[in-house]
């Protein structure tokens, strides 16, 4: 059964550094998403992406964040200058219609 994959599973970085989180959505899906979950908190929407452009973004998704679909298979989330409060689990999801399928997540730790 097709699934969303994410790499790396765990990323440790120093404050101020740039990180790129990678996702491979399910191949025939059209909509792509990033969410995050700070430890012990709710899953929060960051951004949705369709037809090679951002469809919607939350207040969390400020100028430090960007997304890209550099080729036909990858979907990336870049954080330009990480802050301590960016430490969280980041989930990629994709959908064709209603159901969103999530990847296993990347745990980002900012020191």
């Amino acid at each position, binding site marked *: 059964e097709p699934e969303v994959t994410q790499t790396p599973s765990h990323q440790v970085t120093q404050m101020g550094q740039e990180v790129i989180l990678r996702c491979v959505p399910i191949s025939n899906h*059209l*909509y*792509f*998403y990033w*969410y995050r979950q700070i430890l012990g908190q*709710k*899953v*929060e*929407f960051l951004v*949705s*992406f*369709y*037809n090679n452009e951002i*469809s*919607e973004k*939350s207040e969390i998704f400020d100028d430090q964040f960007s997304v890209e679909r550099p080729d036909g298979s990858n979907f990336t989330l870049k954080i330009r200058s990480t802050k301590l409060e960016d430490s969280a*689990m980041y*989930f990629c*999801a994709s*959908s064709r219609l*209603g*159901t*969103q*399928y*999530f*990847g*296993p*997540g990347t*745990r980002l730790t900012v020191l």
Partner: protein
Amino acid sequence: SQQGEEDPQALSIQEGENATMNCSYKTSINNLQWYRQNSGRGLVHLILIRSNEREKHSGRLRVTLDTSKKSSSLLITASRAADTASYFCATDQPRWGAGTASKLTFGTGTRLQVTL
């Protein structure tokens, strides 16, 4: 309070018993989905129920939706130790126009513990 709140926050039952979790939300929805999350792991999709549906079954799962009360329930029958996880409801709002992605708004989750 927030869109998507589950109760109870925590539930402990014995294997074989049924587990019922409830979710309430505030705004009109398009779909409501239930997800499971094992500790520190990814979100596994369980079931989607559309706003025009009232009940849906999938294996040992039964989901109901009452749009007049803006609430949903997830029933897991004959629970197993492997059902131990956090369960979240997630809603998306009606969108206008084709090609519009729908963000999910998650609840706070119910932590289910199933003991032998």
